[in-house]
Every structure is written in structure tokens, then in C-alpha cells.
């Protein structure tokens, strides 16, 4: 049975530019269940990482409104002390770049040991070391004893990412956030890391939020998918539905722009224009409107709402009903740029 683990209610994360606040995450509501991988996809600048950082409480100067309900806490309004107790224990995070996420001056064993120590100060040193070695073994590091005394620069990218994962899962978190965990890695290493996360998911019974821009990774890993555009969720569905029957124009455009190793495409679809910057985000009407100008104005809703098309499949705005790719591709060219 589905058990709710994390619930976001009308989350709005805003950053100050000049004297005004601009929302990078705008009115996002979603839930993450136990034993589930929820993927959040979108181009860079869509607010995926801002969303993850809000949950982890890593924004220092942002204004966070709405609720982030996790167990008995509301993380949006939790005190720094509460966050410190949760972070690293119930909440684990895997960062994008394993080299900058690790301390270059500390040996691997101490970096993992630190996380365990901070949340369990009574554990003896010998037991802590034993636990660290177990963790290293769990994430597939071949010689844990040897790696324990190594520094991050002595390891390859894939090994470093395994260490970052070991730190994230050190205290058996209930919620794990993976922010682009494989973007910095090669294809073969990527598949190893993804298999590792899948395996860990089975043992840990944790909920995982996977943030990525790689649709291939989503197809391999996710149970449910939320597509983000310009700070909003535009479509949310389980993974089979989303890839089998994508509805929102943005989702369909993204899927069409990936060069696929399985089949030949003559030309890739190009989404016109670029993701608007935070200051220039359209705050009214359908935010994707400007990038599909061939659709009639009347196709969009004035105040786009999430529509439940089939149970569990939500789409924002009515424009999905009218959307089609431009037939005459030639016309589309060179218009993307001003």
C-alpha cells in the first residue's frame, strides 16, 4: 500500500534580485511515497534543484512559503536545529559533482565516519570504523580497507560518486534526494551508479527524489515522473503513462528532442527560444506559451490549472488538447533566436 512520506503543499521558493523576490519554485504541490522513485525532469533553469534544496533546507537566503510535510515536521518552517538533526539522518542527499561535494583534505573514512558520529555520538570508534567499511562495501568499492585511508583525489569519478552515495545512505535515510547523480560521469559508470541506486532502493525502503535532465535515466529508474517548466509542474504521471502517452507540449517536445540510440531520426525537434530567466518568467497564463507560438491563444487557459486526465495523470493548462508539432519544419528554423 502507498504510504506518503513527503508532501509539498503550494511550495514557493523565491530569491531576491534587487529589491524584489522572484519565485524559482512556484506553487508546487506533490507527494513522494515510500519505496518510490519520483523523477523531476526539466531543462536547466526550470527550478528542479531549487526544489531539492528547499526540501533539504540548504537555501540560506531564499524566502520559502507553503508547507513541506515530512513525518511530524514542516521543513519549510523548521528551525536550523531541527534541520540539522534531520539532515544526514532522515534526509540524505547525493550531489551532482562528487569532487566538490567531498572535502579534499579529509580521508574517505573520516568523511563517512563524521556523518555517523554526528547522529550517533555514543558509538565507539572501532564500531564506527566497522560501519564505514560495511558502507563502502555496500556501495561496491572493491577494497574498503584500502579506500578508507585514501583522499578523494586518489579516486576516479565513479568511485567518488560511490563515496558520496555512502555518505548519503550512512544513517539509512527515509528520503533520499539525488540531484543529477550521474551527469558528471561516463556512460558505463552511469549505468553502474544507477544500478547501485536501484539496488539500494530495494534494501532501504526509502523514498527517492531523482533530479535529472536525462530522459533515458528517467525511463530506467523512475516510478513516477514530474515534469517541471519555469518553476511549475506541468505534468505528473507514472513513468509508463508519461512515456507512453505524454500530453503536455513541453513533455512531448522534450521527448522528441533526444537523439535516440535505438532508432534513426532525420531531424531532432527543437524547442523554440530558451527557458526564461528568473526575472523574466511569465507570471500569468500558460508559461510555455511563448515557445509554441503556432498554437492559437484560445488554446491556453487564462489561469492554467492541473487537470486530472486519468487517475494519477495530471496536466497543466488546456493547451495539450490542441497541441501539434509544426508541420512545416523549414519555417521554424532560425526563428528560435532573437
Amino acid at each position, binding site marked *: 500500500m502507498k504510504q506518503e512520506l513527503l508532501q509539498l503543499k503550494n511550495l514557493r521558493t523565491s530569491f531576491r534580485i534587487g529589491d524584489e523576490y522572484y519565485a524559482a519554485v512556484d506553487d508546487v504541490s506533490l507527494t513522494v511515497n515510500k519505496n518510490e522513485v519520483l523523477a523531476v525532469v526539466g*531543462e536547466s533553469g526550470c527550478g528542479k534543484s531549487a526544489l531539492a534544496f528547499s526540501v533539504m533546507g540548504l537555501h540560506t537566503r531564499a524566502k520559502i512559503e507553503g508547507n513541506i510535510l515530512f513525518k511530524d515536521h514542516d521543513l519549510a518552517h523548521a528551525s536550523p536545529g531541527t534541520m540539522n538533526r534531520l539532515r544526514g539522518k532522515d534526509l540524505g542527499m547525493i550531489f551532482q559533482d562528487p569532487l566538490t561535494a567531498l572535502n579534499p583534505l579529509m580521508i574517505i573514512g573520516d568523511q563517512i565516519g563524521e556523518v555517523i558520529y554526528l547522529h550517533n555520538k555514543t558509538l565507539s570508534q572501532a564500531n564506527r570504523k566497522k560501519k564505514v567499511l560495511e558502507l563502502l562495501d555496500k556501495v561496491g568499492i572493491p577494497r574498503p580497507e584500502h579506500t578508507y585511508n585514501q583522499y578523494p583525489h586518489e579516486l576516479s569519478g565513479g568511485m567518488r560518486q560511490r563515496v558520496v552515495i555512502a555518505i548519503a545512505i550512512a544513517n539509512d535515510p527515509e528520503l533520499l534526494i539525488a540531484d543529477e547523480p550521474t551527469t558528471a560521469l561516463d556512460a558505463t559508470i552511469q549505468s553502474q551508479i544507477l544500478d547501485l541506486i536501484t539496488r539500494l532502493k530495494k534494501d532501504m525502503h526509502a523514498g527517492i527524489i531523482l533530479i535529472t535532465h536525462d530522459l533515458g535515466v528517467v525511463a530506467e529508474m523512475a516510478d513516477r515522473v514530474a515534469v517541471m517548466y519555469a518553476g511549475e509542474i506541468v505534468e505528473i504521471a507514472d513513468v509508463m503513462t508519461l512515456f507512453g502517452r505524454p500530453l503536455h507540449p513541453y513533455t512531448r517536445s*522534450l521527448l522528441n528532442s533526444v*537523439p535516440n540510440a*535505438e532508432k534513426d531520426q532525420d531531424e531532432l525537434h527543437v*524547442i523554440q527560444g530558451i527557458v526564461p530567466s528568473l526575472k523574466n518568467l511569465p507570471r500569468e497564463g500558460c508559461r510555455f506559451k511563448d515557445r509554441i507560438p503556432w498554437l492559437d491563444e484560445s488554446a491556453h487557459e487564462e489561469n492554467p490549472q492541473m487537470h486530472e486526465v486519468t487517475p494519477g495523470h495530471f496536466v497543466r493548462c488546456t493547451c495539450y488538447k490542441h497541441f501539434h508539432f509544426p508541420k512545416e519544419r523549414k519555417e521554424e528554423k532560425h526563428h528560435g533566436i532573437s
Partner: protein
Amino acid sequence: MAFLEVKDLKVHFPIKGGIFGRTVDYVKAVDGVSFEIEKGKTYGLVGESGSGKTTTGRAIIGLNHITAGKIVFEGKDITDPRKTKQDFRKNVQMIFQDPYSSLNAKKRVLDIVAEPLRNFEKMSKAEERKRVQELLELVGLSPESIVKYPHQFSGGQRQRIGIARAIALKPQLIIADEPVSALDVSVQAQVLNFMREIQKELGLTYLFISHDLGVIRHMCDQIGIMYRGRFVEEGTTEDIFQSPQHIYTKRLVAAIPDIDPTKREVHMQFRQKVKEEYEQSYHDYFDNQGLAYSLQPVSSTHYVALPEKG
């Protein structure tokens, strides 16, 4: 005769050590690579980071010192950069990986794109300006962009400024080193489409370096797979993707995430199987130093690095 021919190319970097800074050993970044590119085609070089693909590209254009081997471009030996004629430099251009660091931040777009023109063609200021504007229009940027600075553009637009600079002299060969790795999928599609379009229009030949097999498959006619400075397999796109022979290639192809979630389980099992096969038969495919053997023909287009029989 091949358009570009690389014969047994070797690039070794010395490792200095000891008190006198003597050379103690070499890093064999590229260790005996041979391939040919035909005119108007796209040749893909694939491999993990550190496999020597970028070094190969840079050696061809003369940015790395060549230890041994020969590079022949349109029948002329261009191995020694000091002896090459100016027209080679004009005919071969490069697109760099990172559009954020390959454009001079203090120069206007006009000066960036006009730099190769100033080096090779005698043009008046007005002619030059007109030519740059034409180039920008060709890459889909507005002519007014010439007075802007790189930071005023998005990643995809910057990469197109890089492309405009590369095609300014109407080169015949473009070496594209991971041209889309730093870009988002939608922008990536834009740049790839555009590269294919100008290839048709200008009859360009590409040496396309990438680690992304999806992109490689989309762009290339022929592919060479590199591992630790050597080729493990070479063939047409079809050879490589339909019937990979070398265990390393198989593993690389299996590692591509499948965009169809219904095949997830099948794909994962397949990957596990290939991984086991890789571990078991590693020694059949690599010599005792872990290097690939020399290439043996499997068909007229398809070569695989296997130990010689007997």
C-alpha cells in the same frame, strides 16, 4: 584516396620526475591509431574520458605534439605543424567543448568571429563586418549581435558563435570536440540539426568527438571506439550498433539508458549479462597490460581488436 588519413598516430606525454626533472616515463595518451575519413562524411570518435579521443583531435589540428605517425590531408603530409602550409590551417577548424570558456569574454562577437578572417584574408573593415553578419545569420543569430559580448548569450547561442567562427574561412574539415556535451537536450538538438544542415550546404567533413552514443549514432557515418589510447573497434554506424563484436563496445552500447520504460527489466538483465561476460572474457580481449590488440577485419568495413589467431 582518403580525404584525411591518420596513420599509426602516437601522442606520448612525458612524466617528469627526480631532482633534475628528467623524463621518467610516458603517458601514452594515443598509442597507434589509424583511420581514414572520406569527404563529406562524419567520423565519430567515441570513448570514456581519458581514452585519448580529444588528444587525437587536437593532434590532427596541430595543438598537441605528435610523437610518431603520419597525418595526410588531401594527399599532403601535415604531420609537422612547422612545415605545414597556411592553407591547411585555413581548411581545418575546430569547435570546442565548452562554449563558456572558448570565447574571449572581453571581445565583442564581431572581433571573435572576425579573428580567423583577419588572419587569413585581407578584407576592409566594411567587408569584414558584412561577412561576419552573414555568418551570424547563417548560424541563426541576428546581425545586431556583433556588438554584444559573449555573456549576453545563452549556452546554445554561444556554441553557435563558436560554430560561426569555425566556418568563417569555409573550411573543409571541422573537428568538433564534444560540441553539445555542455548543453541542455533541447539546445543540443538545435546545434546538432544545425551542424547537419551546414554540412549539406557547405559540403563539410566532420571529425565528431563525443562520449554520448545517442548523439554519435545520430550524427556519424563511421565510428571508431577508443580505449586507453587505442582503437578497440571501427566500423559503420550500423556495424557498431547492430553487431558490436568487441566486449568493450558491447558494454558501452548496453550502458545507454533506454528511453522506453516498458523494456526496463529486459534492458537491465541484458546489461547484467554483458557485465558478467565482460568480467569473464576480459583477458580474451585485452593483453596482459590491459591494452587492446591490433585491429582485425571482420568485414570490409568492420574492424575489431582481437588477438591474432594461432
